């Protein structure tokens, strides 16, 4: 009996000591418009890793910088839920028709998101399959990781070993998908991307060989096609990453096939005219 009484007395003491602190924390939440500095001052103390991750991401080095208020708005209240939906990202990432956005919005994930976004509770953390379909932020800012580059490739021409992002990708997909399924898609995707690189390298190599014989002005049309190849390679990459069949295929591989045969056509035409 005495012990029980002592316990509740102790609890009351603890709470009365803590309450000013809790109160202080509550007061520290700024009201009205805030700026980026204010965010970093507080959150640098509460969650230094989050700020560190943001600083290492491309967002921190864009011009103008993509800072806290760019995505979360100027009002503290509800600011996580403000930032999480796709429209926040799409506003800067080229709009609905840009390949990076369209490859996602036309994927099955993107479709389900379009249909269900208004029914989701956006206060939920971006983890543990809290959403039936992942939006941009669920994967690229998984579990509030503010380094948005953690899943992405640095160079499309390097094989995956150079990036070492497979663990990060797996940790996202496994919220919903089985490990064996993830492995299959990762392997398929990497193989498909490697074949796209083979096409690009074949095109590059043809131009390089031809540059020993022909002038730069003669090779200019071929180099212009090479630029298209880089876009089409990126489409395959986006198609694989966002699981869009259309970007893997029509915007990707057959487009690269067309580029490659056009490079071959331009160069073989040069040879033919030269000898005549």
């Amino acid at each position, binding site marked *: 009996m005495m012990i029980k009484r002592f316990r509740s007395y102790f609890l009351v003491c603890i709470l009365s000591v803590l309450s000013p602190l809790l109160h202080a924390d509550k007061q520290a939440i700024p009201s009205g418009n805030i700026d980026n500095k204010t965010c970093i001052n507080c959150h640098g103390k509460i969650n230094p890793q989050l700020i560190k991750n943001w600083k290492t991401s491309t967002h921190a080095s864009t011009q103008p910088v993509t800072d806290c208020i760019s995505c979360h708005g100027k009002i503290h209240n509800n600011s996580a839920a403000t930032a999480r939906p796709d429209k926040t990202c799409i506003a800067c990432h080229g709009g609905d028709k840009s390949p990076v956005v369209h490859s996602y919005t036309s994927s099955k994930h993107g*479709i389900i998101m379009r249909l269900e976004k208004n029914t989701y509770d956006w206060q939920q953390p971006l983890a543990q399959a809290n959403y039936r379909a992942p939006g941009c932020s669920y994967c690229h800012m998984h579990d509030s990781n503010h380094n948005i580059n953690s899943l992405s490739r640095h160079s499309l021409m390097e094989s995956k070993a150079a990036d070492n992002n497979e663990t990060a990708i797996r940790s996202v997909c496994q919220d919903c998908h089985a490990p064996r399924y993830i492995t299959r898609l990762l392997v398929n995707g990497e*193989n498909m991307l490697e074949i796209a690189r083979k096409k690009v390298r074949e095109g590059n190599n043809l131009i390089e060989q031809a540059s020993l014989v022909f002038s730069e002005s003669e090779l200019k049309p071929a180099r212009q096609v090479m630029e298209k190849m880089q876009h089409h390679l990126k489409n395959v990459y986006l198609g694989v990453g966002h699981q869009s069949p259309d970007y*893997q*295929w029509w915007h990707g591989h057959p487009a690269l096939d067309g580029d490659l045969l056009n490079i*071959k056509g331009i160069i*073989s035409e040069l040879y*033919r005219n030269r000898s005549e």
Partner: protein
Amino acid sequence: MERALDAKHFVDKPKAEVTACLQCHSVATKCDSCHSRHKFSAAEARRPEACITCHSGPPHPDDETYFNSAHGQLYLKEGENWDWSKPLKKGNYSAPTCAYCHMDEGKHQVADKSIWKFGLKEINPLTSGNEIKRKKWVKLCADCHDEKWSAEQLKVMDKERKKTWEKLYQAEKILKDLRTRKKLFPSVEQRPPYPGDEDDNLIKFERIGFFEGQASAFYNVSPIERDYFDMWYFGNLGAYKGSAHGDNSFVKKWHESMDENLKDIKIKAEKLQQSGKIKADTKIIKDIWHKGEYTEFNRENN
């Protein structure tokens, strides 16, 4: 058997490259492409978005043309508030969706009313079979529209298709003429075989037009043949879907694009016609087309 999985290019290309195809060309044997896990919902599959992961992109821009149309615009404006648990029947929806027209009353054979089919060859739109389909369309359109007006819309589409085929035949004629005069460069002897020709290569020839196997002629062909492939596969089908779904801006855009293609093909053909015999070391030309990292990989890994 899924259509397209026995296509020549699917057989010929490295398997790792064509795994992309299987994501859509598996829909004949699975339900969860449209009734996605873990809902398996009829209401979800009725929404036009359920179709567009596969029905988008250059050869079948069903998504863009539908959303641009008056039907699609109404859906985008109001669709969120419609009761999607209702069957696809007259009176239940204030604008039609993909499924309302192509899967009317829940029928899962999506192409049974299709007159122009995929749009890859010219058909006679007035056969007795097509007259029956036409009546089915008019009956469906009459859920909302005047019958006479609906029948007229189908005729407008026939006219558009006719106009397209006039353009495509012009291009085909130019290419076939180049082939007859042996002016296509590189010729079939100078480049890797057309997919499937390795096995049955009794007669080697450049494939021009649907009936010769144009559908796989998007690689290992000469640039002018690829130009025609793009005109036939992307221009033609873009105009077709614009016309079928009521998106006139799309019809205009792709007809202009086909006109541009035809102009380029004429200019290129003129040059090829004037070209003399190839005096160059033909080995150089042959190497350009037969060698290279992807080309060799393709040959050895299909």
